[in-house]
């Protein structure tokens, strides 16, 4: 009798998750499995002749100079995640206290996150314009004679992209931190005050450890999201100048949808997957040292 009821309950559970599961299966799991097969082929979109080539795609990849360049660029791009998280923490702590126009500032910081990528790209290109752009105008005004060329030089273009990405993620990270700050019981803060802790001691020894699960969450999701992004770079630089802003995900996109090299692109995307996996696993292993639940 009871077992029957349990079975019914279980069945009902499956029925409820079915719509989502079917979606994930159709649009994620099956294509992912398919790409796993494709990476051993020379499949080109539009070309009906497909043959298995074993590990050829990987030997080609490890000889491809652009792969190493984009790997390096990806690492520089990933640096934006911890920086953005730190900045978001600072902003959230400041906005959590009594600040004038708190609500408006919160909304302002969140704006980038809900703005269309193309608009962001266009505005930042204007801001970064080397000769007439306001950023370099400001730098010249404060006495820097040779401000950087930002998106127009090989050396600074990835840094410029990082700045845009930090700014973009700041709002989201800040909102999550604000929620976490609300959770901290005021007794702890008052106790630290009574014990004579300075404001920065409170932040370092009470607030920061207490929001560490949030930091961990933001770090993991931020890194995964960042490593997968390419739309914003495609809109701003298309990976140039040269290939100074080509990151791995953009490299995959170009091979698949510009050159139609689906087999090769599948191989690169699985390499990308393993990179994300390794980074995430390292973080899981490392969390015991600094995350306090």
């Amino acid at each position, binding site marked *: 009798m009871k077992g029957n009821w349990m079975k019914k309950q279980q069945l009902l559970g499956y029925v409820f998750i079915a719509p989502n599961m079917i979606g994930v299966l159709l649009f994620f799991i099956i294509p992912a499995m398919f790409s796993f097969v494709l990476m051993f082929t020379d499949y080109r979109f539009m070309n009906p002749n497909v043959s298995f080539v074993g590990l050829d795609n990987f030997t080609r990849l490890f*000889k491809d100079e652009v792969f190493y360049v984009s790997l390096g660029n990806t690492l520089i791009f990933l640096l934006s995640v911890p920086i953005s998280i730190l900045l978001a923490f600072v902003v959230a702590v400041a906005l959590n206290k009594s600040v004038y126009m708190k609500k408006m500032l919160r909304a302002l910081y969140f704006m980038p996150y809900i703005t269309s990528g193309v608009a962001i790209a266009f505005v930042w290109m204007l801001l970064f*314009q080397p000769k007439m752009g306001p950023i370099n105008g400001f730098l010249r005004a404060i006495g820097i004679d040779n401000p950087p060329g930002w998106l127009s030089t090989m050396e600074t273009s990835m840094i410029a992209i990082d700045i845009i990405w930090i700014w973009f993620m700041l709002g989201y990270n800040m909102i999550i931190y604000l929620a976490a700050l609300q959770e901290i019981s005021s007794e702890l803060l008052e106790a630290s005050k009574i014990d004579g802790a300075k404001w920065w001691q409170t932040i370092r020894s009470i607030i920061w450890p207490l929001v560490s699960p949030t930091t961990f969450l933001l770090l993991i999701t931020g890194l995964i999201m960042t490593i997968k992004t390419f739309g914003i770079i495609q809109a701003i630089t298309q990976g140039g*100048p040269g290939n100074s802003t080509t990151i791995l995900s953009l490299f995959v996109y170009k091979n698949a*949808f510009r050159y139609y090299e689906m087999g090769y692109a599948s191989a690169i995307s699985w390499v990308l997957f393993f990179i994300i996996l390794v980074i995430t696993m390292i973080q899981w292993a490392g969390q015991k040292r600094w995350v306090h639940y």
Partner: protein
Amino acid sequence: MNNKKWIPTLLAGVMTLGLLSGCAGGGNTSSGGNGASTLDNSGAATNTPSASEPIKLTMWGGVPPESGPQAVVDVWNAENPDIQVEYVRFVNDDDGNLKLDTAMLTDQGVDIYVNYTLSQTEKRVEAGVALDLSEFGDYDIDDKMGPDAALWKIDDKYYGVPTKKNAFFVALNKDMLDEAGLEVPKSWTWDEARDYAKQLTADGRYGLIQHLEPFYDPMDSVLEKDGYAKADGSSNLDHPLIQKWLETLNAMMTEDASTPPLGEQMSTQLPVDTSFLGGQAAMLNIGEWLIRSSNNLTDFPRDFKIAFAPVPRLADAEADFITRGGLGDLVSINAKSPHKDAAWAFVKWYADGGMAPMAAGGRLPASKDVDKQVALDSLLGDQADTYDLESLEYVLYEDTTPTYVRSASQQVIDLRTQEYEKYFLGGQTIEKTIENMVARHNELLK
């Protein structure tokens, strides 16, 4: 008695109404559902046995509908009630072409489509979605479009009709040239062009600016002639003229400051036609699409005449030079389309002058059936007197330099672009640039 008299009158009235609605149905694009539409058949259609429903064709093209295509299909639809064509625009970039390719592979009802590059056409032929037009015997593409059409042949067959006359040229600010006492060149080298640019450079004004689409054509001019690969199968990107192009342009960007540095141009996406028409540059390396902006004196006011020069060459001898040109806009029929005959009827009509409304957007019909003067008139509209017509006609029709159509694959184009960007931005030396280009090209040639 009265009743009986009424009956014929009533019948006549009903019949008149029927006829009227029949005509209306023919004139409109929709609701031709009463059989009367066959009366309007102007002979273009060949396979409409049961014409109760008009054949619906879908044409995919990269030009925004308002720049001509909508006017083209409107004219056709009015004349051919039994074949109704709908125009769908795809943006002619990676995503747009991918959308078109996917739509064709999955049978989403694409009947006619326009190819803009040879390498895309080759992919579509491979995939079996481009109809081999030799199955129709009633239209001689070589005869109609001239010898340049053959550049679009794949395995010696036509998989589409090239419809547009390509024109690449250097547009010149005639007033500035006169001021500096310079002639409008009819044939010139890059050294001469550099010299012109130097003389024409002034404060706040570049001597030469270039649209990024034809920017690297000088390389292809060399390689289309002498081969992308050498006889032994290795890359020909170390051709001495390629180095010459790189060094000439680099000197113009840095030493002469007569052309904008590439990094600056890319990061600002400098609208070159705006600069040229606004008098901030004396010469502009571009193609026929300039006419779209230069005819528009409201948004781009100017008081100077535009003259035209052929694209400069790298080779010393004129005989060693081929220039980009030929024909463009290859209109193909989807091999999976159920209405091939109807589509073919439309394509023939389009190529033989049906495309005329596109000329206002810079697209000159290539067919010999279209009168040169009529084409020029629709190209220039009311603004003909703001151009130096003699040099325009020379560039469009009289220049006899042999031409090529860009055939390099996207990968080769991209790797070259990445390497020369590094060079022009000061990121690597000329030797390293050529070495990298050759190495990466060889990797692809394997």
